[in-house]
């Protein structure tokens, strides 16, 4: 058993296992706290496979999903997670355009607070916005993505998927490829995977590579083929439409030539290397369908399933104090 698979969480009780009020990021979490959340999520992953998927521990609690940025998958995942736990889930779609500026963000936070939400899930287009709201409200806040900063539940579901499919996280060579500069998924994954002692390689054209990223404990590559050598996990990032033509890369076909995950390229990784993608995919750009749909190699649908389990775990753990769960008050 490697260092990071050691779980002091087992000997920590109640709040000691996860002493945080909010989940605003992976930054600030101890490795054993990340493992604790993964263990909790593992239980829900098993429960979700049964027919009776519903639980009632969040009965009577109000969960508000305040999404200041468009989302389909993450919003749906948080909604299903809340409903499976019995929460009353309300979705607030605040179009980025109308609620972006001025006092409105703080005003919105105060409004949600006044409505006595029991847990708030927030996505916002600006880095740091979720922390800003978390500082103003009396209930737990879950970050569902803030700007380019963090998307902690995505990193947790990715870590859980890796652990289930590869047996452990420590020592795994994980290659993250794509638009790292503008990716909150990449930042949270780098933080989580390095905390859990994976070897992380990041691949991008220099125009999309965050400066000084090696300071986060990863090895940067511009050559995807070189990075894939010996990889256990290949995690592809979505290339956003607005970055596809000219400003950062010349074209999607040129991007595909250098960074598209094809079967030939995947052959450079370990024979049983796992393929991951946070979705939604640009098929034919960063990944080709034959790789994405290969049940032996691709964990993409499992990632979606783990997303629900991880979010159930986070909602459960963060509301334990308010629900008076023994040891968490």
């Amino acid at each position: 058993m490697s260092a990071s698979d050691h779980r002091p969480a087992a000997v920590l009780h109640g709040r000691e296992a996860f002493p945080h009020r909010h989940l605003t990021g992976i930054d600030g979490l101890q490795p054993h706290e990340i493992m604790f959340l993964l263990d909790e999520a593992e239980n829900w992953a098993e429960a979700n496979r049964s027919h009776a998927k519903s639980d009632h521990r969040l009965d009577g609690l109000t969960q508000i999903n305040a999404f200041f940025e468009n989302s389909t998958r993450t919003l749906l995942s948080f909604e299903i997670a809340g409903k499976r736990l019995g929460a009353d889930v309300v979705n607030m779609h605040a179009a980025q355009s109308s609620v972006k500026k001025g006092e409105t963000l703080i005003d919105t936070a105060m409004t949600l607070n006044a409505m006595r939400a029991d847990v708030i899930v927030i996505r916002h287009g600006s880095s740091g916005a979720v922390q800003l709201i978390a500082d103003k409200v009396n209930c737990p806040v879950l970050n569902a993505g803030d700007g380019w900063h963090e998307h902690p539940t995505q990193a947790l579901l990715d870590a859980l998927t890796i652990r289930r499919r590869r047996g452990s996280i420590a020592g795994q060579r994980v290659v993250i490829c794509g638009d790292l500069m503008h990716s909150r998924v990449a930042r949270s994954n780098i933080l989580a995977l390095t905390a859990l002692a994976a070897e992380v390689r990041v691949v991008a054209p220099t125009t999309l590579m965050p400066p000084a990223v090696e300071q986060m404990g990863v090895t940067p590559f511009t050559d995807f083929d070189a990075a894939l050598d010996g990889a256990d996990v290949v995690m592809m990032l979505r290339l956003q439409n607005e970055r596809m033509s000219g400003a950062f890369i010349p074209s999607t076909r040129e991007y595909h030539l250098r960074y598209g995950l094809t079967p030939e390229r995947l052959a450079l990784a370990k024979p049983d290397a796992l393929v991951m993608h946070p979705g939604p995919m640009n098929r034919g750009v960063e990944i080709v369908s034959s790789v994405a749909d290969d049940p032996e190699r691709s964990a993409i649908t499992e990632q979606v399933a783990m997303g629900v389990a991880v979010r159930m775990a986070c909602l459960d753990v963060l509301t334990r104090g308010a629900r008076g769960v023994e040891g968490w008050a």
Partner: protein
Amino acid sequence: MSGTTFTNARIVCPDGGDRAGTLSVRDGVIAADAGGETIDLKGKLLAPAIVDLGVFAVDKAAFARGGIARVGLMPDQSPVLDDPGIIQRAAAMGKPDLWVHPIAAATRGLAGADIAEMALAADAGAKAVATGREWIADSGVMRKVLAYAADCGMIVISHAEDGGLAADAVATEGETATRLGLPAAPALAEVLAVARDVMLAEEMGARLHLRQVTTAAGLDLVRRAKARGVRVTCGITPPHLYLTDIDISDYRTFTRLSPPLRCESDRQAAREALADGTIDVLCSGHDPRGPEEKRLPFADSLPGSAGAETLLALGLGLVRDELISLDRLFALLARNPARILGLETGALTPGSPADLVVVDADAPWKIDAEQMAASAGNTPFDGLPVQGRVLQLWKGGARLR
């Protein structure tokens, strides 16, 4: 007007050094002897009042508390200072207790395209022209601005930041910006702009003042330009001497500045450049911003800090750190900015206007955003203990504080 004599003063003059003695004021100017009222300063500092070059707001209460008798007002006002009538009105804004010296827009509307009416602006009271909060992107326009300003006898004050590189950046590239997920620009954005503006000024024989230079490489360019006789000066504000990009780590928008905070080695280089004379001006960049502009996610907030009240205490900190002498501090705060604006003030020589501060250089206090006199308390130094309080402020022989 009757006279005043300050006795028992520690007189700090950028031209006359640092000495114990007596200073007299008669008819609003520093005189050989005065008679009239005598004020015993009991060993406190008596120095020229601060001339704050490049502020963004006329915030009298903050300037009075900060020991600032004159300000060079940036053209980024609403409306922009690019018309004689508007400039005249700006020049009168501070009366009677503050001299406002308008700095006119170098291009019409600060749009960076057409040369502004500089001679008319000078007639209306403008003491310099400036590019405003941003640089002039078109090098052809900048070259003409420098040439035409030289014809008019005006100095050009520029913001040295390459707009193409700076773009939407709110931080300097580096580990901190990467971890925070903030749009960032390389420090090179400043260096390129300094290089271009210095070379254009050199070619045109124009006078150029770079309002803020904050990087090692940018300061080195200024140092070398001065050595070969280019008529270039530069300034800096205290945050770039005290803070680094690490200070933005909790997304505190009071640390969102323009240019953004730099890395530690740039900060050290700035302190060295202050000590070796490369930097000519220490200014506040006073830019009060209320919650509607600052209580926002970091990248959505507007840059700037309310620096007027903390300028002197933070400057005295540099003396305490033995980086500069006391008389050099007042050269940076008063004499040099006065010279750049063409004002006959900033030193304690007989015949100069009696713009004076009396300072208790040791008085301890804590910077508190809630307790500021400024119209907004956006200081990146909130909570910092400092020393040095303004006890008296005199303008033209009249006591304001």
